[in-house]
């Protein structure tokens, strides 16, 4: 079975005043039809850049290499017209922070309809579809149409952007930090909505730094550290026993585990080392770690880790 989305050796560098900020280095991930992939990592590890690359939302000062294939189509080579048919219809984004991703001075009805029509629906189809979608999420199109985004609670705002993402019936939904800044009740509700999206048969790519949300959602997990995927495999396997030392130390830092921080900080993306980026902070460092960048080595049952400790297997 070929994957719905196949990212291969994707590297993204931003040309800046301080040099090239290498946000992603040779990232390869795939998402099957109906699969849930979690992309986990700290801020600055490259998570959002990955999401924006998939939708070609990157600014002009970037150098991109590698390939992104969606159902066999080369996303990086799409012309503007073709790209418009992909965005929202085949791949949709639930952006970080719903309140700031909608126009604050336009009423919601107009914005929702505009999004639906941009996906190729007629006025009547748009209304029908939005009414159904919002209804399933416990909102009424007519009662929110006349409101502005700031007039809704955080949970309702989240549901509005979810409906907007789903209106084009995309094959894959990308959710960027769906729970940042939400309190625990809203996190529960958001997790339930994401599971619901997944249950409809859409593939889901969830970007988060919230390890508890990731554990709750399950699926497959890719852990990013300093622009590289350092571990990938089933989420359950990761939370039970992570294979990369960074994953292990990260889980130890959870307050309900040991609450112990990892000494030091992640390396600057303008000056990534020519060896394992975690080596300086790794308690298990040995000779090869400071000599070259490890590959993603198979560990067990579909788990791969970018660590020389697994190289000899």
């Amino acid at each position, binding site marked *: 079975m070929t994957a719905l989305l196949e990212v291969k050796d994707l590297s993204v560098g931003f040309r800046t005043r301080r040099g090239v900020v290498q946000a992603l280095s040779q990232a390869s991930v795939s998402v099957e039809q109906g699969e849930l992939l979690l992309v986990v990592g700290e801020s600055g590890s490259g998570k959002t850049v990955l999401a924006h690359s998939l939708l070609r939302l990157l600014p002009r000062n970037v150098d991109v290499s590698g390939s992104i294939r969606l159902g066999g189509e080369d996303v990086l080579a799409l012309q503007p017209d073709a790209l418009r048919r992909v965005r929202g219809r085949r791949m949709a984004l639930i952006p970080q922070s719903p309140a700031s991703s909608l126009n604050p001075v336009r009423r919601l009805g107009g914005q929702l309809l505009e999004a639906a029509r941009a996906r190729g629906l007629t006025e009547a189809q748009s209304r029908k579809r939005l009414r159904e979608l919002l209804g399933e999420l416990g909102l009424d199109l007519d009662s929110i149409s006349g409101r502005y985004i700031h007039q809704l*609670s955080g949970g*309702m705002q989240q549901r509005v952007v979810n409906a907007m993402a789903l209106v084009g019936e995309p094959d894959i939904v990308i959710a960027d930090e769906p729970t940042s800044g939400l309190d625990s009740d809203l996190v529960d509700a958001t997790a339930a909505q994401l599971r619901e999206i997944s249950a409809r048969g859409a593939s889901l790519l969830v970007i988060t730094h919230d390890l508890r949300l990731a554990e709750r959602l399950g699926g497959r997990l890719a852990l990013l550290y300093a622009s590289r995927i350092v571990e990938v495999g089933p989420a359950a396997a990761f939370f039970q026993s992570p294979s990369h030392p960074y994953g292990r130390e990260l889980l130890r830092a959870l*307050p309900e585990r040991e609450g112990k921080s990892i000494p030091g900080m992640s390396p600057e993306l303008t000056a990534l080392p020519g060896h394992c980026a975690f080596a300086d902070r790794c308690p298990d460092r040995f000779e090869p770690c400071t000599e070259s960048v490890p590959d993603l080595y198979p560990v067990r049952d579909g788990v791969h880790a970018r660590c020389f400790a697994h190289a000899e297997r």
Partner: protein
Amino acid sequence: MLSADAVTKTYRAAAGRVVAVDGASLIVQPGTRVGLVGPSGSGKSTLAQIMAMLLEPDSGSVTIDGDRVEKWGLRSLRAMRHRVQLIFQAPRVSVDPRLRVGDAILEPLAASGMLPAGADERRALLQSWAARVGLTNDLLERFPHEVSEGQLQRACLARALVVCPRYLICDELSSMLDVSTQAALLEAIAAVQDEHGLGLLLITHDRVLADAWCGEIADIRELSRCEAVDPAVCFSDDGGFRAQRALERLDAA
């Protein structure tokens, strides 16, 4: 000790007045860690800002080590500011984008007239605080947009601690950060507590974090007579009723 005694604060909103904090009392003893929990819109941040002297309550009082805050004018507060420091949730928007990270850390000292006169002394002070929060010296020369969110929050912690406050209030210190940076910040605070007997008020959504880090946990819903009223919820169908009840209580009082 730092105490809020029966403080009430109301905001004006389009739908009328909204009671954010209603008669809440809270005590933070030096050297202790108190967690303040509660859902969004329940008044946690309002109470924090009142206790940090950034917001004058409508009624009730704030007392810092026996000194009751009598005058809420900027000039009168200046002499007391350094005793209570506050750290916000989003470091990006709580740092002046035009100040280098190192200058931002020293700014509270300048503002309260405590900045050492000699350049060497200033640099030594800055570097010692940077080291304690895990910042390297090269980061101090950068502008806020040139460092990561986690690094900037570390700088905000250094900025709060540089005036040697007696009390530190962290308002969702780490909800935007990864768990390792969260742990690093809390470890740095704990180290300062061990040394100086700093009192900590940790405001968080994260009950697990509060349970793990705080000796005492207060729920804002039990402190305040008022129910959770998110300003945004007031306009929603289900929130209107809660806002209405809050307004009714206000009228009755």
